């Protein structure tokens, strides 16, 4: 439990860091950043093998955040893990920044793949996983996909490829937060039952509460077994999770963050961390 509490505190810190970055420029893709803070905490706090001093280490595990607009959450995670100074978060989207809206492998230390055109990260992740296999590396590739993003046909071409090529070193993390840019996915473009879909495609599939560290930890640990089937974890999440005021707003894809909100949300998250009673 103590270890999970540490991860919960890390997730709250990731949320604070993402808010820090977005507030510094005034607005940004806050909803989709907050919904993946918990899985990022488990990935970088427990599951992934990496070296902040050597971000291009070939043997590392890799993350593809295919919903590239969640960059601020990824940057917050990487800053907290020492890939670059925390203060740099305040350069988000500024002229000459290393931290653009969408993830960019050529700009940010620790970002493993460039994304932003939704769908494309899925095929890239397949290629990376296949490459690791062909090179005889035991590295794993983690792929975060948005539920809106899964409208793209390319996503399903990639999933079919992953199963056909037996990419047991690929873990798909589907951020089922039930919202896309124009609103609820059920109104815009409902995709049906993800678990059934993944299973039909031949994935080893589980569904978890993706904003609950206690459920994410064992689900990710299972995927260490590898094998010849790719893994899918359907993460039942809330867009804006961790900041009630954001989560409650239906249209929370991209929002301004005022000074007052920044102060208040940061204070709330600090309180949460305190309540977890972990040594920092």
């Amino acid at each position, binding site marked *: 439990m103590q270890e999970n509490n540490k991860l919960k505190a890390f997730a709250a810190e990731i949320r604070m860091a993402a808010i820090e970055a977005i507030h510094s420029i005034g607005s940004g893709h806050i909803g989709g950043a907050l919904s993946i803070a918990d899985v990022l905490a488990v990935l970088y706090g427990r599951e992934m093998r990496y070296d902040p001093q050597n971000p291009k280490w070939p043997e590392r595990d890799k993350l593809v955040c295919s919903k590239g607009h969640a960059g601020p959450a990824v940057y917050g995670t990487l800053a907290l893990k020492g890939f670059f100074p925390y203060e740099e978060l305040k350069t988000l989207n500024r*002229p000459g920044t290393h931290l653009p809206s*969408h993830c960019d492998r050529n700009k940010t230390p620790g970002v493993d793949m460039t994304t932003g055109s939704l769908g494309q990260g899925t095929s890239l992740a397949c290629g990376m996983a296949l490459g690791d296999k062909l090179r005889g590396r035991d590295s794993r590739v983690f792929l975060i996909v948005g539920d809106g*993003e899964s409208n793209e046909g390319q996503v399903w071409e990639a999933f079919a490829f992953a199963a056909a090529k037996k990419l047991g070193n690929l873990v798909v993390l589907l951020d089922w937060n039930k919202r896309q840019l124009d609103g609820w996915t059920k109104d*815009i473009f409902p995709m049906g039952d993800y678990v059934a879909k993944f299973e039909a495609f031949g994935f080893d599939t589980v569904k978890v509460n993706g904003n609950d560290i206690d459920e994410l930890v064992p689900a990710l640990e299972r995927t260490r077994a590898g094998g010849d089937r790719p893994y899918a974890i359907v993460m039942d999440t809330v867009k804006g999770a961790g900041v009630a005021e954001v989560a409650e707003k239906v249209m929370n894809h991209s929002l301004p963050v005022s000074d007052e909100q920044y102060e208040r949300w940061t204070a709330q998250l600090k309180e949460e961390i305190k309540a977890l009673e972990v040594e920092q």
Partner: protein
Amino acid sequence: MKIVYDGSMDPRLCKAVLGETIPAMAAEDPDLIYLDADLMNCIGTAKWAAANPDRAVNCGIAEANMIGVAAGLASAGFKPIVHTFGPFASRRCYDQLFLSAGYAKNDITVIGTDPGVTATLNGGTHMPFEDVALYRALPGSTIIDVTDPTMLISVLRQCKDRPGVKYIRVGRKSYARVYEDGSELPIGKAVTLREGTDLVIFACGIMVHEALQAAAALEKEGISAAVLDMFTIKPLDVEAVVSWAEKTGAVVVAENHNRFGGLCSAVSEVLAERCPTPAAFVAVEDQFGEVGPQGYLQERFGLTAAHIEEAAKSVLKRKETK
């Protein structure tokens, strides 16, 4: 049509203009159908679309499929107007545009928002400097780089009933006001915004405003520059290019796009064949986009009035030594 340019911004945002004009056109023409790819909220059509599900289709984040569906609707007698961001309205669905729409002769109108540096904080992945090049290579296409909100309304109405694949690239924010409200701007006809004798500046999109500022600055230095609004990149107003190139003997082309494949290329092709003339280009020098505010990006990629002035002076030197 009346020119009312004084350097001030049009109070209307183009996203609001789209959000009003598309429903208004749909009310007038029962064949019009509007398709979007999860970006209705970005152009203010969501509310109307929700109330009119038989007139507006949210295709989700699946642009290639959306173009194919639009082309199929065209074959069923509809006049589809399709919207997404510029890169996804060109690169992401190019084979569908080319074959399902173009080759199969299913006529559709595509609106690609936030062209070039107007993609600002969405950054390099969302910053199309190549969309015009792609559409130019599609036989029979029409390509418009919008100058101001009045023009946007005029070209939308013309594109609806025009044959072929039509591409309108337009930023969602405001533009400097160039044309009086209600002006009609016939597609294919360049507009002479300013007369001049020493050189001519051919510009489109956000670069029209920059060109007019550059011409005013050049005049103070005794240089007389004509400015033409080449908002129709294809079919290009060839006669306007030839006659102004012949009249002035020096050309500057300015566009918010890669210098390969856009207006610079289109004008050069005409000059080379019809009247070789010294020319200089103010365009993106074969680079990818990056994130930042528009002012920074215009500096970064060399797309300001000052860059046009510089280009004008350099081309005049070559004109003299010719």
